[in-house]
């Protein structure tokens, strides 16, 4: 485990430095800034090093020495740029507000400890992960790490005996390439590497949700959001599976959180490039990331105009080029789940029982996200009732963030409508994961619509603490619009 962790560190350091370079100075307490930057940096760093590794493998130079040399050069370059940029942080005291934040901190710490203990138990029980981990993602990683003679089998048409549901030659390779990178660096194929990555992606998702909401709203909101996320059994149970769905949920959340930050700061280039980078990594993680990237870019084109969309597209370009290169030049074979004729497609689309079956499955999977008495929708509703929701105008100004999420779910729905696989089997083996992919970002948007908790103490001047807190909060929310 130690070797795997050491091999992950350069990726985190690189990601953190790139985030520091592109993120405008944040007027927030250092720990909130740190949580936001490190959680985001984990995603960015693992995404970038995965791309480096795959490009080197493609170029025939995927050995340990070359990988280390390229990453060292990238680290040195990023460090030089960071020193040159000389960021001036604006440390600030937290906005006044909720006097019971200590209770939320305690609860979040307990929930986090239980989550980590649960991860440890799951990894001890299934060190090689669940079905898709050892039949798809980690076996592809073994092919990639195997060297020049085997790496192309990661997208070979005859892999997994061409079995439907097991052979996925066209799957994007962020996770597999990340695992292969660790195996190449450590010199073995121990299960500790993918297990460590799965833990890291899950913790980064929780950290980013808490950090982004603490940064955009207030610390108690960030703490409440992570409590609700960790109460979502559907999320926590998948965290140790070693599947690509939690990494995808991280990149989707990162994109949405960065777009929310960009919109609040008049669309600075640095935030948009970061958002594009994360959306591109979503596409490099799973096929579902492609429609998400497209939808997110279209939403930015609508809200932030062409220049903003261009910056975002620039950020997404490296990963998108890699996905295009993989699918156009390397993949042999195709997914066998689409109809062969238009007539077959229309017949499936016109069948109302398929629509009902999919809708019912979606509802059931949302219901099964957690135990009923602590279902996240119930918890969100309780918070909305007791804390109140933002004004209609504020809600409208934030709800656009949900459009790429809704669009992605609509795309998933369309795939189910036309799939040639047995629909019950297809829904049963994938729907719960699709819900988890968008769940952290959905919580993020939901918490933007709920008012933050404020102090019970009335102000000395008679003005409610809530109002003072809200005014201060608005000031805190303003970011520097200067791109770095």
């Amino acid at each position: 485990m130690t070797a795997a962790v050491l091999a992950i560190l350069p990726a985190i350091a690189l990601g953190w430095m790139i985030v520091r370079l592109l993120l405008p100075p944040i007027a927030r307490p250092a720990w909130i800034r740190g949580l936001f930057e490190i959680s985001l940096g984990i995603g960015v760093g693992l995404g970038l090093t995965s791309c480096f590794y795959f490009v080197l493998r493609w170029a025939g130079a995927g050995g340990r020495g070359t990988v280390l040399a390229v990453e060292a050069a990238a680290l040195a370059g990023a460090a030089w740029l960071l020193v040159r940029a000389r960021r001036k942080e604006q440390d600030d005291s937290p906005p006044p507000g909720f006097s019971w934040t200590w209770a939320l901190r305690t609860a979040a710490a307990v929930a986090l400890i239980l989550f980590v203990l649960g991860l440890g138990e799951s990894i001890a029980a299934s060190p090689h992960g669940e079905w898709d981990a050892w039949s798809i993602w980690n076996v592809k990683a073994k092919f990639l790490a195997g060297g020049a003679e085997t790496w192309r089998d990661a997208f070979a048409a005859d892999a997994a005996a061409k079995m439907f549901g097991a052979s996925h030659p066209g799957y994007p390779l962020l996770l597999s390439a990340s695992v292969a990178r660790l195996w190449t660096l450590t010199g073995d194929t121990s299960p500790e590497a993918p297990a460590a990555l799965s833990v890291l992606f899950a913790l980064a998702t929780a950290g980013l949700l808490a950090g982004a909401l603490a940064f955009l709203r207030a610390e108690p909101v960030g703490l409440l959001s992570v409590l609700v996320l960790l109460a979502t059994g559907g999320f926590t149970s998948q965290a140790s599976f070693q599947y690509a769905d939690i990494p995808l949920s991280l990149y989707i959340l990162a994109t949405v959180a960065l777009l929310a930050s960009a919109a609040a700061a008049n669309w600075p280039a640095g935030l948009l490039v970061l958002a594009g980078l994360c959306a591109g990594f979503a596409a490099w993680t799973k096929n579902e990331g492609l429609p998400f990237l497209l939808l997110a870019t279209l939403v930015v084109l609508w809200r932030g105009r062409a220049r903003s969309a261009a910056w975002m597209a620039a950020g997404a370009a490296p990963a998108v080029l890699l996905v295009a290169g993989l699918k156009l030049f390397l993949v042999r074979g195709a997914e066998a789940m689409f109809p062969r004729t238009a007539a077959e497609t229309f017949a499936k689309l016109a069948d109302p029982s398929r629509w009902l079956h999919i809708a019912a499955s979606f509802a059931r999977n949302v219901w099964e996200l957690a135990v009923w008495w602590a279902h996240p929708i119930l918890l969100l509703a309780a918070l909305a009732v007791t804390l109140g929701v933002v004004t209609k105008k504020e809600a409208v100004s934030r709800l656009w963030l949900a459009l790429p999420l809704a669009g992605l779910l609509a795309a998933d729905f369309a795939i189910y409508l036309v799939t040639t696989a047995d629909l019950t089997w297809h829904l049963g083996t994938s729907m719960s994961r699709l819900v988890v992919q968008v769940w952290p970002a959905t919580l993020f948007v939901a918490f933007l619509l709920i008012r933050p908790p404020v102090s019970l103490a009335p102000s000395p001047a008679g003005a409610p603490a809530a109002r003072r807190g809200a005014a201060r909060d608005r000031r805190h929310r303003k970011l520097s619009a200067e791109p770095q």
Partner: protein
Amino acid sequence: MSRKTTLPAAGARALVGVLAVAALAVLASLNSYQGTVEDRRRLPDRYGVESSLEQRFASVSVRLPASGAVGYLSDVPFSDPAGTPAFLAAQYALAPRLLVPVDTHGAAEWAVGNFSRPSDFAAAGARAGYTMTAQMGNGVVLYRKAKP
């Protein structure tokens, strides 16, 4: 009514709501943890991946070339519910070699047998054009392409 009396009430309601949500969330986390512990006890190595790696295919893996296609023979067909996990677990254990069922890729020089019960392993290999090289135990057999 003056703000002084209504706002504390709203604040108290907010406090109760926030603390109740926090408490329920912690209880749900505890519930998830307990479920994980029970699953671990109930379902160790559910698909036989651990045993494939550590016990069944470890000895055959060291005798195979490090890369290339390897044929796969089994008495459990893919139509059997146990056939797919058995094949995929073997593929994971033997990767980065590419495991291919012998009926679809007869050109592989080496093949492994993955059998669920004792039988005439040599005859099973011969039917597919392979000579048995070694029995590795636990139903795992190493084959090599028969010389014409």
